[in-house]
């Protein structure tokens, strides 16, 4: 509140100091961001008119703040927080981040195409995402439900990653980085807009780190388990390839990413500090996506066809129950593969209307899960699943008078076992072209995923699972002040019902099962100010207040901080085009699954970019600058209640431009 007051008081003062846009050079004008969003309505529209509260992160910001994963990026965004269990990163938004969940209530898109896998429904945001953030042109964060446009998983938010074009790279470069925790990275990239409008980009990244050498977990502090110290079990290895070719309306994007992560926490009942083999997981993502769009008079036509493949291999050393061997190795294999086709028409109609209609067909030809033990001959689980889904949707935007926008959307989704109709509506009042007031209502759903529907693990009862739903209301006030400051005030309240929840069930193989039984109500307030300052400086500050309550227990949700505060500032460095960027993040205290309260977490990161001549750029980052000791709540698959996070780490890099046309 103090923040808003302060802004309001100092605005007139700042406004008098600003100079006008027409005095800027074209080069500077072309660097400005006019706040266009694609993912809110599957067409480009100004953020003020979008039926959602939207944030962006640009390629320039990713470089300035040294973000290395999508998780780093989302951590910096208003109202978002990330919980790391030293294997996967869980997104928290609007007070909801149940430890042990697989990010299936956030829809993750690459260039508008769904990349949540079709087994866990998971949005993978760590290094396992499959695409190097250096190849992100822009990340759109679209808050609120969007199932009326996208169907499944667009529950709390949609995150749309737009990838880089050859024109934006315009040349070839290699990058090498090294840092603490034995971190090393090599990246090569080349891109160029060619003759006749063809645009080509290719990039490849290898990254590895040994991680924290000795991690201490008090829950395992016994002489038999190395006094709770996991040694040399925090390593990660990543390989990523990305390519994109665009030619007159057609864009073909291909990517492959693989990550192997050692797991030091002895999750899923594995033997603590086991090395032969260590507990580890391997995630692989493949995507080939062809997107074609063209204008036919006043109609915009878009069609796309995509192939996604996701594989997951988990290796778990467990105490053996058979024969003489001291350990048994459990192997969990997952293959998720799908083909999808989509068509969409957007047309301007008389009476200031814009209508979008689309249809989508998805063939999940593999949703397979296997589970085998080294001391048993036959696999204990060999589940081959496949399914199809169909959907049609429509969105209409009407502007009856210049200052009013009415937006309504509806989507029908047909699954093999059920169907859903989801609406969204928005009333947007724009007293001028620089501010808007929005009332937004939307319903969204998340279907039970193939993992939850596994009757071998969770019993026959899971076949009765139905989608969980959420109804969200939101009031948003967005304003541009004199072309240098953008402020947002947003308040929301939601009711999430029939949440698919894990409960104990001694009759199943997993001793747990999934049922539709949770209900959560929440409300929150978010404030944000984004500023462009003199000498190419920029700053952003945000605050979120949130309260999410489990309706059964009337308690706050675990891992749900009441306050989130973020501030960041990027200043010009000592030489031309260099920058020094500081980011501070604060999470208030959270409760763990056992109800224990953990201390608030306050961290700061510092990144410096230093171009040297035409060909070289040095970078240096210090993460967790003040070496804050903090932990995230652990999930039910962990013995420990909290998972300690990294202290201060450092990273330096050099980029050499080999060719610049």
């Amino acid at each position, binding site marked *: 509140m103090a923040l808003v007051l302060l802004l309001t008081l100092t605005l007139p003062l700042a406004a008098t100091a600003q*100079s006008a846009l027409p005095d800027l050079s074209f080069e500077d*004008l*072309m660097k400005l*961001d006019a706040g266009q969003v694609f993912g809110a309505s599957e067409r480009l529209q100004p953020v003020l008119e979008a039926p959602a509260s939207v944030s962006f992160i*640009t390629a320039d910001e990713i470089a300035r703040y040294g973000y290395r994963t999508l998780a780093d990026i989302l951590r910096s965004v208003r109202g978002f927080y990330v919980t790391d269990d030293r294997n996967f990163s869980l997104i928290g938004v609007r007070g909801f981040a149940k430890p042990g969940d697989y990010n299936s209530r956030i829809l993750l898109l690459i260039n508008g195409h769904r990349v949540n896998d079709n087994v866990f429904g998971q949005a993978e945001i760590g290094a396992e995402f499959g695409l190097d953030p250096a190849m992100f042109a822009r990340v759109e964060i679209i808050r609120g439900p969007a199932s009326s446009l996208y169907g499944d998983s667009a529950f709390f938010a949609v995150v749309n990653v737009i990838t880089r074009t050859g024109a934006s790279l315009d040349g070839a470069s290699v990058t090498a980085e090294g840092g603490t925790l034995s971190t090393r990275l090599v990246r090569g990239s080349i891109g160029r807009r060619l003759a006749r409008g063809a645009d080509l980009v290719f990039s490849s990244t290898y990254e590895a780190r040994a991680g924290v050498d000795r991690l201490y977990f008090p829950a395992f502090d016994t002489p038999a388990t190395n006094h709770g110290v996991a040694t040399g079990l925090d390593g990660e290895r990543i390989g990523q390839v990305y390519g994109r070719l665009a030619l007159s309306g057609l864009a073909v994007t291909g990517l492959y990413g693989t990550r192997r992560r050692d797991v030091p926490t002895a999750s899923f009942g594995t033997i603590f500090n086991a090395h032969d083999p260590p507990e580890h997981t391997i995630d692989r993502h493949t995507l080939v996506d062809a997107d074609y769009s063209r204008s036919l*008079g006043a109609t915009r036509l878009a069609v796309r066809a995509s192939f996604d493949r996701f594989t997951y291999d988990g290796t778990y050393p467990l105490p053996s129950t058979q024969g003489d061997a001291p350990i048994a190795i459990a192997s969990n294999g997952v293959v998720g593969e799908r083909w999808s086709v989509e068509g969409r028409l957007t047309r301007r109609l008389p009476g200031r209307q814009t209508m979008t209609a689309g249809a989508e067909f998805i063939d999940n030809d593999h949703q397979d899960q296997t589970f085998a033990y080294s001391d048993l001959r036959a696999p204990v689980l060999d589940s081959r699943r496949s399914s199809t889904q169909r959907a049609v949707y429509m969105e209409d935007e009407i502007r009856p008078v210049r200052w009013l926008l009415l937006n309504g959307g509806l989507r029908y989704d047909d699954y093999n076992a059920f169907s859903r109709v989801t609406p969204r509506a928005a009333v947007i009042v724009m007293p001028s072209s620089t501010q808007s007031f929005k009332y937004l209502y939307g319903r969204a759903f998340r279907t039970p995923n193939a993992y939850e529907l596994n009757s071998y693990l969770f019993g026959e009862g899971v076949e009765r699972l139905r989608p969980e739903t959420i109804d969200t209301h939101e009031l948003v006030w967005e304003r541009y002040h004199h*072309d240098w400051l953008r402020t947002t005030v947003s308040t929301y309240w939601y009711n999430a019902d029939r949440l698919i929840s894990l409960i104990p069930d001694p009759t199943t193989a997993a001793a747990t099962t999934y049922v539709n039984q949770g209900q959560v109500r929440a409300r929150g307030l978010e404030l944000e100010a984004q500023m462009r*300052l003199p000498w190419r400086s920029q700053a952003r500050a945000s605050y979120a207040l949130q309260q999410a309550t489990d309706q059964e227990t009337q308690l706050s949700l675990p891992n749900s901080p009441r306050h989130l505060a973020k501030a960041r500032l990027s200043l010009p460095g000592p030489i031309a085009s260099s920058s020094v960027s500081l980011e501070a993040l604060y999470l208030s205290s959270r409760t763990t699954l056992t109800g224990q309260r953990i201390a608030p977490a306050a961290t700061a990161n510092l990144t410096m970019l230093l171009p040297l001549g035409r060909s070289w750029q040095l970078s240096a980052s210090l993460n967790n600058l003040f070496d804050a000791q903090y932990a995230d709540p652990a999930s039910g698959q962990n013995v420990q209640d909290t998972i300690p996070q990294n202290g201060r780490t450092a990273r330096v890099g050099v980029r050499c431009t080999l060719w610049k046309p």
Partner: protein
Amino acid sequence: MSVRSVRRTCAAVLLLLLVVGPSRAQDVTEPALKAAFIYGFVKFTLWPDDAWTAAAPSVMCVLGDDAIADALDQTVRGRLHAGHRITVSRVTANDPLRGCHVLYLSHVGAAQAAQIVRGLRGAAVLTVSDLDRFGDLGGIAQLYFEHGQLHFTLRTEPAVLGRLEISSKLLSLSKRP
């Protein structure tokens, strides 16, 4: 770190930023940015001498987009074009458009846009639009967005016919969408 101290830190950071003093307009709305581009085109284009009668103003016509017209009003306030004062005029397709120095058109169909620019062939009118393939329709400057940033592409043939001289600097910044 308590909530209070966090708020205090945030307030301090903001205060610091405001003391530094913003003086550079940057993060912008779409109409303000488009208006700045249109005004930029005017700065880098030469009109033939007979494009004005003595004390007549430079006329920027806007068809189909009141938000752009409003933003242009703000942009050109107190500015001159080749010594002439600038007026912004909201026009329809039926108005005589040859009296415009600049015509920005938006929210019209491709056929209608083609018809309008055909009617301006040989006239000293700098046509600008955000319509797809505006150059193919006979227009001069097309504005388009890429990753949230505004770019433009230029066609010189209709400009040459209208005796408009577009500076090489502008041409060098023109891209093909």
